[in-house]
């Protein structure tokens, strides 16, 4: 399934890169691309990984919130 998320208060470019990498490593995720510029995450995944993603985001950028589009 293809899901798009909006990340609010994504402040740091390197953090965005770290988040993207961590999400790409999640089992079931076939493709993940995070654009720091548009603050959007494009996800292609076989399993439901929203909770894992929230954990990753919170760990790297605690002020950042996730919302599904």
């Amino acid at each position, binding site marked *: 399934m293809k899901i798009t998320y909006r990340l609010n*208060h994504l*402040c*740091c*470019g*390197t953090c*965005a*890169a770290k988040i*993207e*990498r961590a999400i790409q490593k999640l089992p079931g995720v076939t493709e993940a*691309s995070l*654009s*720091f*510029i*548009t603050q*959007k995450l*494009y996800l292609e995944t076989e399993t439901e990984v929203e909770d894992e993603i929230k954990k990753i985001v919170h*760990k*790297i950028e*605690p002020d950042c919130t996730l919302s599904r589009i």
Partner: protein
Amino acid sequence: MNLSSHQKCELIRIATATLLLIGVWISPLTETARLIAFLIPYGIVGLDILITSIRHIGHGQIFDETFLMSIATIGAFILGEYPEAVCVMIFFKVGTLFEDFAITRSRKSIAELMNLSPETATVLRNGTEEIVHPSTISIGETIVIKPGEKVPLDGLVREGESTLDTAALTGESIPRHIGKNDEIISGCINLTGVLTVETTKSSETSTVSRILELVESASVRKAKTEQFITRFSRYYTPIIVSIAVFIALIPPLLFHQDWNDWIFRALMLLVISCPCALVISVPLSFFAGIGTASRHGILVKGGNYLESLTKADTFIFDKTGTITTGTFTVAKHDKNALKIAAYAGYKSSHPLSISIVQAWNNPIPYTRIQNIQEYSGKGISAQLDGKEILAGNIPFLQEHNIILPSSLPNTETVVVTAHNGVYSGCVYLHDTVKPDAQKTITALKRDYHVKKTVLLTGDRKPVADAVSRQIGIDEVHAELLPQQKVAILETLLHSQTGKTVYTGDGINDAPVLARADIGIAMGAFGSDAAIEAADIVLMDDSLEKIPFLCKIARKTKNIVNENIVFILTVKFSFLILSGIGLTTMWSAIFADVGVAIIAILNAMRMMHI
């Protein structure tokens, strides 16, 4: 200048702390009182940094900017340098705020480039006009668009006549005339008359939303350079941290150097080396390039295509509809040929059939015509009053065993007809080459290192040759069936070292568009099929957009390269200087934050093209 509430809060904190700092600095306090007095402004700007640093350490992320700022300033306090400690923290905060501001500003200005959809629309419900948000209007409702308003949704004009400014979508400033039963696309500005429109799409699926969606998601298809920078910074950070640890420990331990000095230098190394500037400015440049292109009516679906375009050395063009206007006109015809061709072709959407039917301009006896079969690349057969009629090219009629006169002209586009097994004349058609075609080919060869230009067409060889000669295309392949076009593309892909670009009209070129390194679809003003198949979509029919697109691609690449070189040079120089001990916290912060801001501003230069 619009600051977010978060940014405003930061600004107030910084201002307050600065004032307090100056006040305390000049006051005659001593010892403990002095320390506490300096701690107040420090706390105002620095407390959140300290807390964030502790939180990051708790999550396993130790070595980052917040940690360094904390250590550096705490260290300064311990050494008794109170004013310096506060100054450094303030300076860091100022720099970060500027960086944040620069990012927000650039996101906004790129988004503004594509400010296509209006906030309100006037809809006719129960006989009265209501002003609502476009997203609440459903398909089939009637909306009223007054002069000066932006068209909110795609639809069909039911009443009214006007002219439209399509610049926002196509970059074209010549107004288009629109009237009853014409299709209208969202995003245009209605200029002169009031239009009553029945909506055919909701706001989610209207052209404007689809374009915005495409451009936004384009930032996800990352250019190779972007991917490289991300990977680079991933490996680079641990290396830098190791070097920093080395610098902090080895000289004091082995060479009996001063601990303070070397730990300080190690910290500055970490601040200077932060790869944020690269990680932000490179994607931003591509995004700015895509945004600028969309402002001129060019939809680029990914930064990678913009990057590939700079390496393109082969341009392949479809003929009909791309190099030529695609509207044929009947130049002359033999006596019954036009009638037969029109009868056979009235249902066909092929450009030749359309022009023939238009030229016939007489009623078509539908009930007498049966069993219409269209053969792609060849022709059409049908039954007229039970007798077979054919309209198509020479090979098609020969396949049907029609005996053709030996002296058929071969210099023009021709539709040969037959009735009941007997040849019944030809229809001769003219296709017009677009006025900017020659300029485009010349510009591509002269300014953008295009080594090979190719024309592919299903049309006759003499016609194709004539067109190629006229505009300067080097290689011609004519009389091609659709699948043959792909085969030729494959050969070219393998033989050329640079990237191959195919430009076509999208609808029947989907396989070729998909196979080429870069597929450009033209005249796609609203065509879903083209927007789907191509990598880059030109919203209007203007060929001149292609060299312009190359210009954007090249400028983007240049800015990216400039930024990378600038950032790495400055950082590297500061790193060396700090190793020797010639830098201060101030210069370290500049090398981190200042460099990022300059790179971001440089990336925004993209928009002035």
